[in-house]
């Protein structure tokens, strides 16, 4: 199936969970977080959070900032 990650379409296996996606995109779970369809998903729920086709996912991390 396809989800939108940070504005770009990405194919993910059916049943893919959020923690897997974050790990794949960010390289690790540490220091990152995600919102699905505009709602922030608590870290504790990532493992069991199933993704659905067409969802909008934002995956962010810390960068240098003022």
């Amino acid at each position, binding site marked *: 199936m396809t989800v939108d990650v*940070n504005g770009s379409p990405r194919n993910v296996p059916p049943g893919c969970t959020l923690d897997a996606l974050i790990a794949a995109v960010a390289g690790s779970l540490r220091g990152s977080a995600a919102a699905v369809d505009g709602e922030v*998903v608590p870290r504790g729920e990532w493992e069991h959070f199933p993704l659905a086709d067409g969802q909008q996912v934002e995956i*962010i*991390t810390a*960068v*240098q*900032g*003022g």
Partner: protein
Amino acid sequence: MDDPFVIAGVELGSRLILGTGGAPSLQVVDETLAASGTAMCTVAMRRVDAGTSGSILEVLDRHGVRVLPNTAGCRTAREAVRTAQLAREALETDWVKLEVVADERTLLPDPVELLDAAAELVGLGFTVLPYTNDDPVLARRLQQVGCAAVMPLGSPIGTGLGIRNPDNIELIVSEARVPVILDAGIGTASDAALALELGCDGVLLASAVTRAQHPARMAEAMAAAVHAGRLARRAGRIPRRHHAQASSPTEGMAVL
């Protein structure tokens, strides 16, 4: 330490808070942290794939510096609250430097959205440090909704114009029940010293150090300036006088 700097019950080892934005490299960030002796730094939250690097966190870890995520770039309370929530999940801290700006040109805070966001975040259990303008009334309201500090600007972000209206900063300080941190506008060391002399509890700055010709040296300068300003505040300066007063005795002159 006989003069602790405490925010929300947490004692910080330095009254100088650094923003890491604008530094040409993580190497420079590393050097400025070492030179500044800061205990807390701000970071921004951005998409992982925007050519960003997470390793700013490693640099902060190496120096044992507390991370303070900001909501830079947010224009509405809604955006700012969600960004703060993402930061909490990502960085496992409920502290946030709350920024809600009205436009990209002035980067001035939007008082209405800022106040709404602050109230909501306090309700969500965040420790909120809002970047605000120098309006004493807005500072008061931000305290009323439960902010852990107020961070008025000296002048617009990145301008280096220093503290344009010291009267307002003094007024904010005179009423404050939480720490007051001068945020934005610092250009050089004397600006930082002045902030502490006016009664601010700390200073938050980024560009003044990260964009200086020699960032690490300026970081050291800022650390010394904050120390100087705080000591001067506590030392009780002489009053300003309109007429001169001799510092040498007026009696006992030899007749020559």
